[in-house]
């Protein structure tokens, strides 16, 4: 037994610890489980699922940038039906909390996906991705419009009893306005941030390095922005926050919790160190032990300003 209580409650969703693996950076769990013990994590968030399978964007989809990477996967996924049939059997047995991430190109599709998936017991909560920068329909057209976010939240909440986490776009002036809208419509939590819109060009061919032209920037480069967005939400809205963006190690995770996150998600780091989640859980334990912090949840939003 740990001397530290690592459990957290994120808007009604109980997690054994605050370390989650982020959507799109852990697939459906099977590949990464060869490198890490998923049962030691707070939970995993699936790749964004849509009603029908999506092929995703043509290559090249990724490129490295200074301390970051751009991706334009384009929500490639197997669709809700195949997910239930092919992936749930494995996910039933990983002994960690499963959060389903949903992306859609219409409000109806969000609702429909949630309706279908909510019957599956293994799924403990939904993360609604209204902030993918890499698709034509849905994506930022939704995520950068506070009224659409409001509407999606309301309608999705209406069809499930499970906690709803709305994943917010950082590509807006005031992210806290979006968090307010989520709260007002009954959303249980927000997660922040999704990727920043970026691009990169080959100076010899003058073509974009990513076929989709722009992509989403992730990794340590965006950590200062992610921290500022989480802090802005924390200081303005009373809603649980899942902090995401550039977390590479336990110190980054602590920093994200201090500025307001109840739990954190790891994205890009999984590609480099697929065992990072477990290492971060261990780091959080020693941080707490050394400071006689009894419950990890005490550090959430404990900034001294």
């Amino acid at each position, binding site marked *: 037994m740990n001397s530290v209580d690592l459990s957290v409650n994120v808007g009604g969703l109980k997690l054994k610890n605050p370390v989650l693996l982020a959507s*799109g950076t852990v697939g459906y769990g099977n590949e990464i489980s060869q490198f890490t013990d998923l049962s030691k994590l707070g939970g995993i968030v699936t790749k964004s699922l849509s009603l029908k399978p999506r092929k995703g964007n043509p290559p090249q989809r990724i490129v490295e940038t200074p301390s970051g990477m751009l991706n334009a996967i384009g929500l490639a996924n197997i669709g809700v039906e195949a997910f239930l049939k092919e992936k749930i059997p494995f996910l039933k047995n990983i002994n960690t909390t499963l959060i389903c991430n949903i992306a859609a190109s219409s409000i109806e599709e969000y609702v429909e996906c949630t309706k279908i998936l909510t019957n599956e017991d293994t799924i403990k909560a939904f993360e609604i991705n209204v902030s993918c920068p890499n698709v034509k329909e849905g994506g930022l057209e939704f995520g950068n419009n506070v009224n659409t976010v409001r509407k999606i939240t309301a309608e999705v909440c209406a069809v499930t009893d499970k906690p709803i986490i709305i994943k917010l776009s950082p590509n807006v002036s005031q992210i806290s306005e979006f968090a307010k809208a989520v709260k007002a419509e009954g959303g249980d939590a927000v997660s922040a941030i999704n990727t920043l819109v970026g691009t990169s060009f080959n100076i010899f061919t003058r073509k974009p390095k990513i076929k989709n032209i722009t992509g989403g920037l992730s990794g340590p480069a965006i950590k200062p922005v992610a921290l500022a967005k989480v802090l802005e939400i924390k200081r303005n809205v009373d809603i649980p926050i899942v902090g995401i963006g550039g977390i590479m190690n336990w110190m980054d995770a602590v920093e994200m919790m201090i500025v307001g996150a109840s739990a954190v998600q790891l994205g890009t780091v999984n590609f480099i160190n*697929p065992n990072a989640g477990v290492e971060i859980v261990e780091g959080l334990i020693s941080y707490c032990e050394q400071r006689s912090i009894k419950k990890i949840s005490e550090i959430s939003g404990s900034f001294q300003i």
Partner: protein
Amino acid sequence: MFIEKAVVRSVEEIAEGIFLLSAHSPSIASIAKAGQFCNIKVSETDFPLLRRPFSIFNIKGDFLFFVFDTHGLGTKILSAKRKNDTLDILGPLGNGFDLTGDYQTAVIVAGGLGVAPFSFLIRSLQDDKEMVSYLGARTKKKIVNLGLKNVSMATDDGSYGFKGNVVDLLKKETLELSKKKFRIFACGPNPMLKELQSLCIKNNYDCQISIECAMACGFGICQGCPIESYEDKNYLLVCKDGPVFNANAVKL
């Protein structure tokens, strides 16, 4: 598959800007197959951020070997490694070459550092197979001919062997080849593989190609390495479904 902190034994420049690195990596070495690759963290910091994929060039006992060309920052850092530095290696990755089946002659076609996987492949082939190799390079100084047998050479500038590309060289010799049952194993730059692919599809040659593309994870979680398939309407992933494919399976 492992994440192994390997210890560098040596790094040598074996041709202009091309290095051979060996590292003690017993876990990976014990299970790797020819045609697989590893995803290597070249620095101990978070910069450069992503791992770099490299074919397993060879295995001797507990040691892995890689050959690489200095391309950008990552390979530059790798080339500056010294004995006893540690190297964080993730592997072995991908599915490797399929060596089983009914063929007498293994025909190796390599463009530039496309030779990387073949030392290992040759060692892995059964003794009863014959072997011929076609090796292309930009110029004489860039030739890396390590462990290949019965080699015919082509250089773009004609500074050594046949003047022209390696697929043209191969074309000249297919008549001779086709007397026996053969399988082509190929690796090299995309334009070369494309040309080879159309040759093979046209003539219905048995051919396996190893493909490079941008990668983040290397093991199937990022979806960053799609390749169009002839059979499946979805993309395949180069890192997981490849990097070796049948030449008629994927659109280059």
